[in-house]
């Protein structure tokens, strides 16, 4: 069977000593990032991107992916122990998880989260392995018109899943796309919007944009209102859940895994939606919904399974279509390109060891997370005692060095400062940064395929509507746009994000 051969190849690659080491490094770093509030996985991966240049492609991608799903684990730890979700998708875990901790059942909550996540990660790895190849085969049939429509759909869908005003999210996308046009025009080589600055001929570096908008802007947000964190945490004991707990979490874990695997593919942060959706599903299905919010273990197991499954399946659009579902995936595109690989449908055939190795490493990474995190929980909690005054200078310094070493170019470091301030002002005005980065990464693709499709069709714009796949994708995009703009539906959308009490 193909699938088994492929997984065998993947496991063989992923189990190479060096790759396991980088996987371990990735998940440890990721957990740290998830535990420490104030640094997100996006900024971390952006800063570490330059470090991966010297590594083998497989090793670097394995490490970066590990940071991403490791952060999901770490985020749930702080959510449960001190009611401080380090990551947006862990916010829902905090509701019942922290309540359990206050009742002295922190260990059970952590174990439920870890076991649920591990199960979900295992299933999602298989989902990825089963669905990625046929999708990639289908994507090989795509022409420029289809790609253009697909990018439009991806961008629009990211609005539907973003919080806040749809109009602003649209504007952030347009701004990102515009920033993406800086540099040489692909067809004529004309330098555009470079202000005569030599460093801009190759375009703005997206690490500068990402580190500025997700790192520096975030630090400025945190410095608005400095407070010392109280690191008072009760001792965690009794990790192993009772038979009764285990019986309770089987259903939620299964349903959370299913929901998460499906929603993770959506552009724009499906893992956050998955966590919220699976929580409300469990509450609705429960015979004792009144326990939710007061320490129901189902309310921890379901969203944790869902967000971990979603974190994994969000690699599907990246690996099969070359389209990032959210900013972290956009950075992964950068990591691929740096290694000389164009992410997209060809990766499976041209780099099978890399593709399957990356997938298999996710399962290994999940296993490492369970083995590491439960016994070492005390160590992670200690990290919370690190004062922010020590932490944020480290982020700024590493951002400066990391961005500089990318091209040995001071201009990129100045760009970090500019985008940090711009991002900070826009975030303060209620604009989410994720659509901007997606627009920035996808903008050049959008332009390239728009222009190519129109050249092939001899300037006939109807090609986007007469080719069936393209038409369907555009119709879906229109649908997504309507959903995110219509006020009645928008209220519903807000409700999904509002924490139940």
């Amino acid at each position: 069977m193909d699938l088994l051969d492929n997984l065998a190849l993947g496991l063989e690659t992923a189990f190479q000593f060096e790759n396991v080491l980088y996987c371990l490094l990735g998940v440890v770093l990721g957990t740290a990032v998830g535990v420490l509030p104030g640094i997100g996985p996006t900024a971390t991966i952006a800063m570490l991107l330059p470090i991966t240049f010297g590594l083998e492609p497989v090793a670097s991608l394995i490490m970066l992916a590990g940071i991403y799903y490791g952060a999901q684990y770490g985020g749930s730890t702080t959510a449960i122990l001190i009611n401080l979700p380090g990551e947006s998708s862990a916010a829902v875990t905090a509701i019942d998880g922290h309540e359990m901790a206050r009742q002295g059942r922190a260990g059970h909550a952590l174990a439920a989260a870890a076991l649920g996540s591990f199960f979900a990660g295992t299933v999602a790895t298989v989902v990825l392995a089963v669905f990625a190849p046929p999708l990639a085969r289908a994507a090989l049939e795509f022409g420029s018109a289809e790609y253009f429509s697909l990018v439009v759909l991806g961008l629009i869908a990211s609005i539907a899943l973003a919080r806040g005003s749809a109009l602003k999210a649209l504007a952030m996308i347009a701004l990102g796309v515009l920033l993406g046009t800086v540099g040489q025009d692909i067809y004529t080589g004309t330098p555009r919007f470079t202000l005569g600055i030599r460093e801009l001929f190759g375009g703005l570096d997206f690490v500068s944009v990402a580190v500025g908008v997700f790192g520096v802007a975030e630090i400025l947000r945190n410095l608005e209102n400095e407070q010392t964190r109280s690191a008072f945490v009760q001792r965690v004991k009794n990790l192993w859940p009772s038979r009764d707990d285990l019986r309770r979490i089987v259903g939620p874990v299964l349903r959370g895994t299913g929901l998460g695997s499906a929603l993770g593919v959506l552009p724009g942060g499906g893992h956050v939606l998955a966590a919220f959706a699976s929580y409300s599903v469990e509450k609705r299905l429960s015979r004792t919904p009144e326990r939710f919010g007061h320490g129901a273990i189902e309310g921890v197991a379901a969203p944790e399974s869902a967000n971990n499954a979603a974190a994994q399946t969000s690699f599907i659009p990246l690996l099969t279509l070359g389209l990032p579902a959210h900013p972290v995936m956009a950075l992964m595109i950068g990591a691929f390109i740096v290694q000389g690989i164009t992410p997209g449908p060809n990766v499976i055939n041209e780099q099978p060891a890399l593709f399957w190795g990356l997938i298999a490493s996710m399962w290994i990474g999940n296993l490492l997370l369970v083995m590491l995190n439960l016994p070492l929980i005390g160590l992670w909690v200690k990290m919370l005692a690190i004062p922010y005054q020590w932490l944020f200078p480290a982020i700024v310094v590493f951002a400066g060095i990391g961005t500089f070493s990318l091209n040995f170019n001071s201009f990129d470091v100045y760009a970090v400062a500019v985008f940090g301030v711009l991002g900070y002002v826009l975030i303060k005005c209620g604009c989410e940064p994720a659509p901007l980065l997606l627009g920035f990464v996808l903008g050049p693709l959008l332009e390239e395929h728009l222009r190519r499709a129109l050249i092939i069709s001899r300037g006939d714009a109807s090609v986007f509507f007469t080719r069936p796949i393209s038409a369907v994708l555009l119709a879906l995009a229109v649908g997504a746009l309507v959903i995110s703009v219509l006020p009645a539906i928008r209220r519903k959308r807000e409700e999904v994000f509002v924490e139940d009490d």
Partner: protein
Amino acid sequence: MESRRSVPDILAGAIFAGIGLTFVVASLGYELGTPLRMGPGYFPLVVGAILVALGLGVVVKGLVAGEDITWGSVPWRSVVMIVAALIFFGFTVRRAGFLPATFVTALLTAFASSRIKPVTAVVVAAGLTGLSVLIFIVGLQLRLPLFGPWLTF
């Protein structure tokens, strides 16, 4: 409907419209081409125009039914120090060398917090510099001089 004016909305819209307009004006300076063969200016012109329209939309919405956003304080000191730190690093990393550039950058950044004491800031900066040398120069073999031409004779 009660009108709710929202200053953050108006500001955001103005930023969008302003940047969009800049790109529109700049792209008129490039060859536009035709829809069949778009020149370098065509696509940015269209997207710029869309951004201007969206920006104006956000402004109008901010005047009529703006989002309720709590603005909060602006940590001016942090903004200035962090921007200064990054510009300092970019400017001096080659000229003064990795070691002094990193140390001063870390020091400037540490002072972005209003709560930090000078002694702590120096300790943090020194520690970070040591860590950075270990990670980037020793560990990752980054080819940068510890002391640059400004400080070597």
